[in-house]
């Protein structure tokens, strides 16, 4: 198992490097804004005395290198300071929003993946039939529709024209009482957003899986499976699908960064209480601490997913563990 361990360590080291670069980027990004750099950290509405106090606290009078180390410490401990807009700590704001964003992204991704994978496999097994045509068509076309357009249309049709779903928000105002009522309310508000993401996403999945599956099914070892008298279902799932799993899992985790971008847009369209919309509000409202923290969190999520994809791939595809340096 040692080749596995060295593989893991190499991947983790790589991710830490990326994280470090992102931290540097984040540090300079919000400090190199045109205009007074101090304004990015201290609410301009504060009194001069308060500003002086906070200046000392943030080390703004100290050299840049000191500030950077202070910043590193803050980022690692998730101490993001106070929001200009709400006055609460940024962490508080993020903490209430993070679960919503994760729920949105997680369910959308899982549903797209399952639906897309199943459809892709069916399309590969029943070539030339209508299901393959749907997969080929939706896979090619779904990429072209801007997500916000589809979402606005869905809102128009299913929230305005036929008032089935709410027009905005993560929960009803005022929220209902009781655990199950709240849960149902929450789900009801998520149906259109998640639905739109699945609608936009399943096509790409299905096409990808179909192409992979068609390729795998033409491999020699599938023919050998038939030669061994194994039932067709067993060959499809335990041999073909099992071979698909490594690239599939990787794509699954690698698509998370992309869907994070989708979160920003989706949360904006549906006015959901999430980190993406918080980022937008922070940017347009010039709430630099919040913007910096949101960006950092999203970048962290991206790095984590990439790392998880790499590590999982190592478990699932044994061939990869033996890769040499310098592909």
């Amino acid at each position: 198992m040692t080749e596995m361990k060295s593989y893991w360590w190499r991947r983790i080291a790589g991710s830490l490097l990326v994280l470090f670069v992102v931290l540097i980027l984040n540090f300079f990004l919000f400090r190199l804004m045109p205009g007074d750099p101090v304004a990015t950290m201290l609410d301009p509405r504060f009194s001069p005395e308060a500003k002086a106090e906070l200046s000392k606290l943030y080390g703004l009078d100290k050299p840049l290198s000191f500030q950077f180390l202070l910043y590193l410490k803050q980022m690692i401990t998730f101490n993001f300071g106070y929001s200009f807009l709400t006055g609460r700590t940024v962490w508080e704001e993020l903490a209430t929003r993070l679960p919503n964003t994760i729920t949105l992204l997680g369910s959308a991704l899982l549903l797209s993946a399952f639906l897309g994978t199943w459809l892709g496999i069916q399309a590969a097994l029943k070539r030339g039939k209508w299901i393959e045509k749907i997969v080929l068509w939706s896979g090619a076309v779904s990429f072209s529709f801007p997500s916000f357009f589809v979402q606005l249309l869905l809102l128009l049709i299913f929230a305005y024209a036929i008032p089935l779903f709410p027009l905005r928000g993560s929960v009803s105002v005022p929220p209902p009482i009781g655990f199950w009522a709240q849960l149902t309310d929450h789900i009801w508000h998520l149906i259109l957003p998640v639905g739109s993401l699945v609608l936009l996403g399943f096509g790409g999945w299905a096409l990808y899986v179909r192409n992979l599956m068609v390729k795998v099914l033409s491999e020699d070892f599938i023919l050998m499976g038939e030669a061994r008298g194994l039932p067709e279902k067993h060959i499809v799932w335990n041999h073909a699908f099992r071979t698909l799993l490594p690239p599939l899992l990787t794509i699954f985790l690698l698509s998370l960064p992309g869907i994070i971008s989708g979160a920003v847009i989706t949360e904006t369209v549906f006015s959901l209480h999430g980190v993406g919309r918080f980022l937008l509000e922070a940017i347009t409202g010039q709430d630099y601490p919040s913007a910096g923290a949101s960006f950092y969190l999203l970048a962290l999520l991206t790095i984590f997913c990439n790392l998880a994809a790499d590590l999982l791939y190592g478990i699932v595809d044994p061939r990869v563990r033996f890769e040499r340096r310098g592909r």
Partner: protein
Amino acid sequence: MMSLFRRWSFLLLLFIAVLSILAPFSLSVSPNQEVAPPFSTPLWLKRNLPPTMKITLSENILKKNIAWPYNPPTQIHLSGEITLSVPSALVLETPTQKFVLHHLTVGKNTFDIDGRDLSFKQRLNFSPFAQIPSELFSEKGEYIFRVEPDFSAPPEMRGTITFDIKGGRWGLLGTDQRGRDIFSLFIAGIRVSLIVGISATLLASLLGLFFGLISGYAGGWTDTIIMRGVDILLSIPILPILMVLAAYWGKGLWQLVLILSLFSWMGTARTVRAMTLSLRDSSYIEGLRGLGAPTFYILWRHLLPETLPLLLANIALGVPGAILAEAGISFLGLSDPRIISWGRMLHEAHSFGAFTRGAWWMLLPPGLGITLLCLIFLDLGKFLEEQIDPQLKGALKQ
């Protein structure tokens, strides 16, 4: 080549490009101007709503018939600058009534009357709270708008009188929340999508080509460093960084192009690098090296032409991404409000309550426009890929 010219996507793209270039010359008004009340529906819908119209009387045309099978308009406005030979009255004849809108004297007359003016209401003997347009246009039928002389002598007039009737319908695609014609906005928006989409992708491809060639050919530390850079850039979530950069470092078009290309060259770089790696060890490149050919020569004269077809396909396939990215940034409101783009139109539709008013005609054109452009480039990319395939196989065989 011929097959390209017959492809639907190419022809459509050509048509759209020509349209966007000719548009400023053919449109009579700047797209930014207000032409009708906000959220007017397109002319071909809701036929009972009156279209916004302008009735003019001038020189010898002193009478106009107005067919009015509609509901009352929302606003009216009367204006004119004329010289008249005899005293007259500006009259609106409904099927059952006759309203004297304004008295005209001999000589110069300049007037500018809004339907909400209290004095106007008083003159017509309506209460101050009356809605003039509803009162005037209360019935459906034939109306006559004319200059009626007080006595029998036919009047002679110089100048124009304009009767602005603001209704609920306008144009091919209606109006937005500022009363701007959506069709004109739609045509104007083509340019931004095309310009940003194509130039960002071109720039990204050039960057990718550059780094890919160098990385693949040089190998060693250069390769490692460049590939590490690629990994790092790929780990940064794209929309958030675009948002931050666009918001803070300039909302202009060219800044956007620059930012977009900085974060989309990585895919091309990887593909070019892979190709370079496979070609580098081919026998004919080795032969060139053996003959003492300088690196730059090999890269420029031999490796570059091999990668070019692949690059073209990559460009065509990358344009939709750039178009969607620009549209996304504009939709989030992070673009220059003075620049008309389809994404911006959708932003305004969303922010200014288009769908709480049911104004779906604000949503559909820009959204479909973006989709259509993306589909066109995807098809072109597919075409180019099909062209490469036999070539690619040929290149690798060496």
